[in-house]
């Protein structure tokens, strides 16, 4: 598997979205490349290599081919290599928000808070958070007048397909 394949499998396990949404065949935005690059820049090449290596090792040992294969691998990855959970969660946040998070531990009452830095205009509009709410990015819709009076397409349509 090349690093991008593993990166996408890891991202599927983290985000709960399908391959068709994260890495569509006709991928005009190619947001996955921006995110892999950002992941490397923020957590170092060595850490990313190691996370992807461990992902592949665990994946190989998994018996059968369960439908939630990627999520199972991520569960095992977090158990085996707890030091990789936080960087992977930051990657998860990046996919959803299109922004790189800074997690701080105050206030203690809320177990901390998160600030974030938008990576690009594309990363904002491609954020999965808009899809998980069955909507569109605030400020960028392809829907037409009046759509808001009716329920949206089912959630599965947003999880499986590109925008």
């Amino acid at each position, binding site marked *: 598997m090349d690093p991008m394949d593993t990166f996408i499998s890891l991202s599927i396990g983290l*985000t709960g979205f399908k391959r068709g949404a994260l890495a569509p065949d006709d991928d005009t935005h190619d947001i996955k490349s921006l995110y892999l690059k950002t992941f490397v820049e923020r957590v170092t090449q060595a850490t990313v290599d190691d996370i992807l290596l461990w992902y592949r090792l665990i994946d190989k040992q998994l018996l059968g081919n369960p439908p939630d294969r990627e999520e199972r691998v991520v569960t095992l990855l977090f158990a085996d290599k707890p030091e990789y959970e936080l960087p992977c969660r930051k990657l998860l946040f990046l996919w959803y928000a299109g922004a790189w998070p800074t997690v701080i531990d105050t206030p203690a009452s809320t*177990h901390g808070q998160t600030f*974030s830095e938008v990576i690009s205009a594309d990363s904002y509009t491609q954020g999965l958070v808009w899809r998980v709410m069955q909507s569109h990015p605030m400020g960028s*819709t392809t829907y037409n*007048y009046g759509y808001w*009076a009716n329920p949206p397409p089912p*959630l599965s349509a947003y999880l499986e397909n590109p925008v």
Partner: protein
Amino acid sequence: MSIVTPSGGFDVVIVGSGIAGSIVAYQLGKAGKQVLIVEGGPPVPKSREEYLQTFFTSNAKTPESPYPPTIQGAVPATDDNPLGQPNPSSLNTPRYTVLQINAWQNRNISYFVYDAPQAGIAPDSPELTFAFGSSYERVAGGTTWHWLGTSLNNLPNDFQLKSRYGQGVDWPGGSQFFYRLLPYYRKATEVIGVSADKQAMVELYKTFNVEFSGEYGDNYGFPMPGIVESMNDVLYAQKVTTLKVDDIPLFVTPTPQGRNSRPGNRRQCAGNTNCIPICPIQAKYDGSVTLAQALQTGNVQILYKAVASNIRLNGNQVSGIDYITYDSQTGPSTGTGTVTAKRYVLAAHAIETPKLLLMSKNNPGWPNGVANSSGQVGRNLMDHVMYLAWGLAKDPIYAFRGPLSTAGIEAARDGAFRSQRAAYRIEIGNEGWNWATNDPNTTLSDFIFGQNNTQLNGDSLNQQSQPLRFDPTLPAFSKLFGTRLVNALNAIYVRQLRLGYLIEQLPDPDNRVQLSSLTDNLGLPRPAVTYRIRDDYVRNAFVSAKQVSTQIFNALGAKEYTQLPAAVQSSGDTVTPTTFEYKGDRFTFYGAGHIIGTYRMGTAPRDSVLNRRQQSWDHSNLYMVGSGVFPSTATANPTLTIAALALQAADNILHDLG
């Protein structure tokens, strides 16, 4: 930009090219008058895509985020300036932004200069001072760039608050002011291109005993049919009719809105859910629409990046306006000039207008500034102070879709209760908890990183003793990923509800804009602002709003998530900007974006700046427009009234010019 002075000179100089200044310019230009606009900000960009890209890449998507000067990432981030906000003293056209509210005591960040609260002041003291909650823009087209689009009339009783309820002040002529303004309200709906359901408006105003007749009567139609209501609106409409506030039955009214429900000169609204900060397709009206029309008359010219700095007087007449030009926002000034005309109009909104009047203090005989023999310039700063409430619906209502708001509960905008407490309208939000908790990001980080800033992922109870943890089968502070994250987030976002109460504020002469000793990059003084909510009349409305929200969410079968604000800190590093205590409870107020009252109209020169023609009592060739002229906030969002008053002022100026 070269200005060609007409052979007979300019008829009118206007300071500011927002909705009010542009409307006056267009009306005068259409009538063949020669007009020059002096605009402090840059021109409308060739494509609004420039502003949109700035918005997309902004970390904090505040109302001002798309517009220059840049307010985030302008300087390297530091611990006490994590967003890299610029120092206002380094900018040629700084303005107040909502990001400055939490930094209100930091003079290197906040453009408004505030004194610290009085030492040891009690959190429920009426003398507690606050950060002002609302902001504005200094660009061509003005603050309507980040306008929601709400286009409501005020009510007759809004104009006679004193004589009817013994509160605040009347507008000149009381309820007659409303009836004189009606034809201009009609014209204003045409200027803006308001989409509204006329029948719903007739039904609404009937409940306030307002009978429309004549020009605004049966044969009047809004320019476009009403905007389709959201699923959210329909739920409220079905459920709130079981409720009353102070014996007034509640019902939902679709809001008249300044956005296209049909394709026309502008595009049809596509529901980008982004009216504030920026409509990406200009389906929503903004001042640049009328500015373009004004310039197209051939009789209106404009100077950009020209900041009005002084008003000259000759005797008691205005004889010229001085300005300073600049090229780049942090660069040096590039020149100065003076413009002259037969009449002058100030349209620089309710902070920069009084600032300009107060700065103009070197005219012999006018040491307190121009138009300020009453001492009222800069006083009576007001906003609709907002109470926010939020909750989760039982079933999906699919938030974050459609215009930010498409309906409201207007019934509590007037009634006998107004002898005791402020009126409010209740805006129904379509944008989930975007305003209330900065969602979607806060819910997202709560469930990814095991935090609980939304109360959805912890152990707490709401004030009705209901547990707030969203999924009782999960432990508190859960960290989710994969399918479980998808399911939790989806179930939360599609149910998010938000109500906003626009509470009227009374004029208080000590709430004011003055000149500070600090300056901007052009050497002009930065505003010193003092702001309190002293009146029980206003504070009582917060108590009412809180009770009513709980009743509404109960009627909907929704669970309330409104957070109790953290305790008031009146000293130290983190002075609370907008929280107060009252009657044993604690409230945070929000700005509605409605900056009102700093050069008010009145019936006598001793206690007002303008007569009802919006003409200075002191200088008969000087007019002022915008919400600064309002004697009280009244109960409607101000823009339609601003537009109507600008149209009326244009007629008055035309009459003067003959």
